[in-house]
């Protein structure tokens, strides 16, 4: 139980990678507040699962695009659990389309959720971390933000933005014993990837050195490492979890 009695916020925690991170943290003894946007039933189920693991859980339906709601998420977490130690900015969406077909709304919604959402929640948590001179932040980026990906100009821009945010905040908050890191998943077996065409999926698996899509647990494993004492001297870093697909 390496996170025993720590308090963690995970945005977009009901499904996919967020869910795997939530379960990993709960399994390691942390109390969890997670946000979700639409998946009410899935969120309730997850809450029960966490409580069965013996951890405390707060599930909050909110949109990370809303600064005031993000504030509420942080305040409520501190109120219910008496503190805050870990923030995982995971909430993200895709609206894939060739740029020539992309509407302003499709651009805006992805940037607002994926990038501005990170600002909204982190801005509301940072003063607590600075004051207590302690805190860990993990931002979920994507290899799309490093290598680029056709039909994902909006998503890739938001995910690259997250890496810049991570590096800058790591420099700014490092003297206050706050570590800020990112994880950049490649193709992970979640609903986000399930939408890809079968043929495309088959082709991808052929060029991934580890010959499979990752599962959400692979990403949670990297998060677990970055939050652990083993990573005490690592900050501003982005760990790529992609089965070797984008080896540079």
């Amino acid at each position, binding site marked *: 139980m390496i996170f025993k009695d720590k308090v963690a916020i995970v945005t977009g925690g009901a499904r996919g990678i967020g869910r795997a991170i939530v379960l990993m943290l709960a399994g390691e003894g942390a109390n969890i507040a997670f946000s979700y946007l639409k998946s009410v039933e899935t969120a309730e189920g997850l809450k029960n699962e966490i409580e069965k693991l013996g951890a405390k859980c707060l599930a909050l339906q909110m949109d990370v695009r809303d600064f005031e709601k993000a504030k509420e998420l942080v305040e409520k977490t501190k109120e219910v659990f008496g503190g805050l130690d870990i923030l995982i900015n995971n909430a993200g969406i895709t609206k894939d389309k060739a740029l020539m077909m992309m509407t302003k709304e499709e651009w805006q919604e992805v940037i607002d959720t994926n990038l501005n959402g990170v600002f909204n929640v982190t801005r509301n948590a940072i*003063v607590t971390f*600075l*004051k207590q001179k302690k805190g860990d932040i993990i931002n979920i980026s994507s290899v799309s933000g490093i290598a680029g990906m056709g039909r994902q100009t909006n998503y890739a821009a938001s995910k690259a933005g997250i890496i810049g945010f991570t590096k800058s905040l790591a420099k700014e908050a490092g*003297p*206050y014993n706050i570590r800020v890191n990112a994880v950049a998943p490649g193709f992970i077996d979640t609903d986000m990837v399930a939408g890809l065409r079968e043929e495309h999926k088959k082709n991808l698996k052929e060029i991934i050195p580890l010959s499979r899509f990752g599962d959400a647990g692979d990403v949670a494993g990297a998060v677990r490492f970055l939050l652990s004492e083993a990573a005490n001297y690592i900050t501003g870093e982005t760990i790529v979890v992609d089965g070797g697909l984008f080896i540079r």
Partner: protein
Amino acid sequence: MQDIENEIRNIIAEIVEKDPSQITPEAKFFEDLGMDSMMALEILAAIEKKYKISIPEEKLMQLTSLKDTVAVANQYLK
């Protein structure tokens, strides 16, 4: 009242690494004392710790001089 002003002056002096005599009530933290926003936060946190009070972070912007800081602290001191 005077005591609190002196105590807070000492907290500020320690954080900005200046002699307490330089922290006059009107001296501007940022312009006159070379303070940065992180130091303002440290002052806020040190005051909260010393008096066991909680000051909302929105008040951070109001910490611009010793006089203003004492005024903010007084709002939360019983």
